[in-house]
């Protein structure tokens, strides 16, 4: 359990960092956009991905299982 949370948090941190970098690169320097808001938004997005990374990973795994199951069932009914 502890390992799973660490793995999820690490993945969340990595995705969050990329998401933050995208926000910064697409908004910083654009006319009309508030720079402080951009940085604040980026930091929060990173933090949220980090905090919820393990939950997102758990939901993703659940989705993988249920999606595969539903595709399998659908294939069954189509046959």
């Amino acid at each position, binding site marked *: 359990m502890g390992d799973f949370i660490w793995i999820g948090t690490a993945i969340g941190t990595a*995705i969050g960092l*990329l*998401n933050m970098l*995208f926000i910064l690169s*697409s908004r910083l320097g*654009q*006319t*009309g*956009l*508030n720079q402080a*808001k951009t940085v*604040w*938004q980026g*930091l*929060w*997005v990173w933090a*949220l991905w980090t905090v919820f990374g393990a939950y*997102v990973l758990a*939901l*993703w*795994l*659940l*989705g*993988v299982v*249920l*999606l595969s199951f539903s595709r399998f069932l659908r294939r069954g009914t189509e046959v």
Partner: protein
Amino acid sequence: MIVGKVKTAVIIGAGVSGLATAKCLTQVGIHCTVFDRNPYLGGVWADGYHDFGVQVQKDLYEFPDFPLSEEASHFTPGPVFREYLEDYCDHFGIRECLRLGTRVTMIERKGDGWLLEVGGSESSETIEADLVVVAAGLYSETPNAPNIPKREDFGGEVLHASEIKDISQLKDRRVAVIGYGKSATDIAGSAVGVAEKVHLVFRTAHWPVPRKLLGVLPFKWGMLTRLVAALIPPYVRPSPIVRAIHSIGYPLPWLFWRVVELLLSTQQRLRTQIEHGETLMPETPVEFDAFTEVTMVPRPGLIDFIRSGKISAHRTGVSAFSSNGIDLADGDSLEVDCVVFGTGWKTGYPYLPKSILASLDDGPDGFYLYRHVLHPSVPNLAFVGRASSFMSVTTFALQAKWLAEVVADRVLLPDAEAMQSDIDALKSWKQSWMPEGPARSATLLIHMCHYHDELLLDMSADPLRKRGFLAPISELIVPYRAADFRDVV
């Protein structure tokens, strides 16, 4: 595309979009004349069917810079909204632009501008304008009534939902309402207890959205946030994170929508058995069905009426009229003395010459426009209101502001080629996944926030509208209200 100096504009339609356009163009010094064929302003809000009203909470459906009064209720009733539009007109001093009871019958090119033929009941005249803005709405041209055989055999009355001004028209009658959208279900619900018998006949079931999810949470929280917008089929130019969510991350949005379906079907008991063992369960997944033209937030009580048999629901087509009713495709015959079509409206622009419709590339989806407003091949013709959204008043107010900024040269358009390739991208994106329909080109719905972002960025305004310390969280999980756009329009 705008060419030359625009000094005068004609706006066709005095509904929400026409009034917003008149306000914004007047503010940048354009002399506007607003024509409406009806003798009153308000468009769809001027004269609707019995007990019609807005589908969403009032903070979503009001002008960002002119809030509805504190006393106005949520799901604002039509007549209240019409009064509000009258007040809007007076507040922004646009009443003198209005020429009501005057229909635009024809427009043709004259130089860079336009020559228009307009007429009232007695006379017609020709006027010139540098810019024409079509704000004629998607729901007011011609009532859509399916062509059902043997109509002449039927001894009863056939009406369109828009003709039911007072539900007592259906008193003590046996009624079949055809359709499963907002107007059909509203009329069927209102007819319970008034009509002798109410049937609701529809071919396709759609996912109804309850006003409150799980009976507690207003639906906007579950459907109209940026977080949810990231989980629907991605917008035409998705960010890398959204692209990742819909590729490797796909099990996440898939799971989310299946949970939504489970909640919607359980809360509204969509597995209720109706005639012939059918149910109300839709076949199309909710994340795609939400983009059909029949997205609806039914009045509370509709499903209970169906469950209790007060509305007898038939999930099938109508194959023909008979002398005393209608024959259904499932073999049943309904004895009725009134058939009401709640089957929507046909969008059309009879005053636009064929050559212009051809230049707009009008097809089965309607026509696609740059930012849903302009087309590079038809300069100085703009459309405001050709975009369906859950908060249309805000969407149209932003469109009107964007157009005024373009006319005032404060928003610079890309060249014609770039505009066309943008239009082509929008078209192939929609055609790749969105359900077909005559207004597919104009459909935005849950994607409205992405469209608003584009308009805001063009106007050098920040698409992130939430304020305060926790704004980044609000951006994700709190739905936008009209008021969030106050300082832009």
